[in-house]
């Protein structure tokens, strides 16, 4: 039998998911990981995006700043797509610097969702 593996230092924390409003534009910044224990937080953040109407200047874009999100699993990507597809016509989600896993899963299963735009800035 093999030996019990020591968890590395980074694994002693419990990676959660935090969501906070963006300053200066409509949307949220998420930080952490999207997985089984954080799907609820992720879903609520996206439901907020669906609920919010256009802002006072008629802006039809909702920004998701994801540069501090390190991982999104397949179910998490599915939640994102479901939210985007519930947006009224003409509105869209802009994902800023999504993690590679999310880009990979979107390309594989949902390559052409008009309401999702990926921005690397």
């Amino acid at each position, binding site marked *: *039998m093999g030996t019990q593996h020591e968890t590395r230092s980074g694994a002693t924390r419990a990676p959660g998911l935090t969501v906070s409003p963006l300053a200066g534009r409509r949307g949220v910044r998420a930080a952490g990981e999207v997985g089984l224990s954080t799907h609820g937080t992720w879903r609520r953040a996206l439901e907020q995006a669906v609920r919010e109407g256009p802002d006072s200047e008629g802006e039809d874009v909702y920004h998701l700043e994801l540069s501090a999100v390190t991982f999104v699993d*397949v179910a998490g990507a599915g939640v994102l797509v479901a939210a985007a597809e519930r947006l009224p016509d003409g509105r869209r989600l802009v994902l800023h610097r999504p993690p590679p896993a999310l880009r990979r899963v979107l390309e594989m299963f949902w390559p052409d969702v008009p309401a999702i735009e990926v921005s690397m800035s």
Partner: protein
Amino acid sequence: MSAVAEPPSGHRAPAAPRQDAGPFDHPALFYGDEREYLDGTVPFVREALAAGEPVAVAVPGERLTLIRDALGADADGVRLLDMREAGRNPGRIIPGVLRAFADAHPAGRRVRIIGEPIWAGRTGTEYPACAQHEALINAAFRGRTVTILCPYDARRLDERVLADARATHPTVIPSGSRRAQGSAAYDPDGVVARYNEPLPPVPDAPVFPFDAGSLPQARHLAADAGAALGLTGVRLEDLALVTAELTTNSVVHGAGSGVLRVWSEDGFVVCEVRDGGRLTDPLAGRRPASRDQRGGRGLLLVNLVSDLVRMHTGRDGTTVRCWFAL
């Protein structure tokens, strides 16, 4: 299901449905040499083209070249795929090759595919997954108006492989023949069960037990191990995704916990997840996801990105082992 002998017919893969078998047709073509290969495949493609039926050819690259050259300009109307790439993982072939092509065309019109998933270079590690794949095609396409012709290199493949082909295909076209015959040995469920082989734990591989509270750690551990063993870039991302999906499945469907192992062998990084659940759906991970379907893509992703997936499931639990080429 008892296989019914084909009525005499002028061509190898008759479009007429067999009695009791429905519209799906899945003949094995045994060929002894290049000439028999082309005699068995090229007319199949030309008949499809003449009938206006969509046709795809997914065979190993060197034989793809043979068929393409024989078709000449007609090859332009055929979807050509190198099965060594597209079908490297046998578990990827139904969702990623066969149904991907068949589903892209309207139901009702016959779709024809030549699929050669088993060639002489397949390893002993790959073969059980190959045989199960051939068997599961029958369940995956039951009732569909599709013909899938599977060539077998009768000269270079083991007799055991040819015997399995008689069990995974309702009809067989013997070497040198032009006519499909019902296969008395047809028993796809028996093949799926027979190749549900135990995957005994590899000695000396690090062991990481996980539960709902340690899913992120399990993924980090797999990614760290994969990187240390030499995986990079998108392949390392794929290992992390696969680990996340398998370990999450164990927590949600497999008794709440499991054991992860990652090691390297023969130029591959191998990731294994073992849990106490039982996989009851043999087609799990082999159905393409419909666009509107919310969940159920985890095992499909595992099949699409891994170079090989082997599974064992039974009363004592389920083991899924995935290979990533270095």
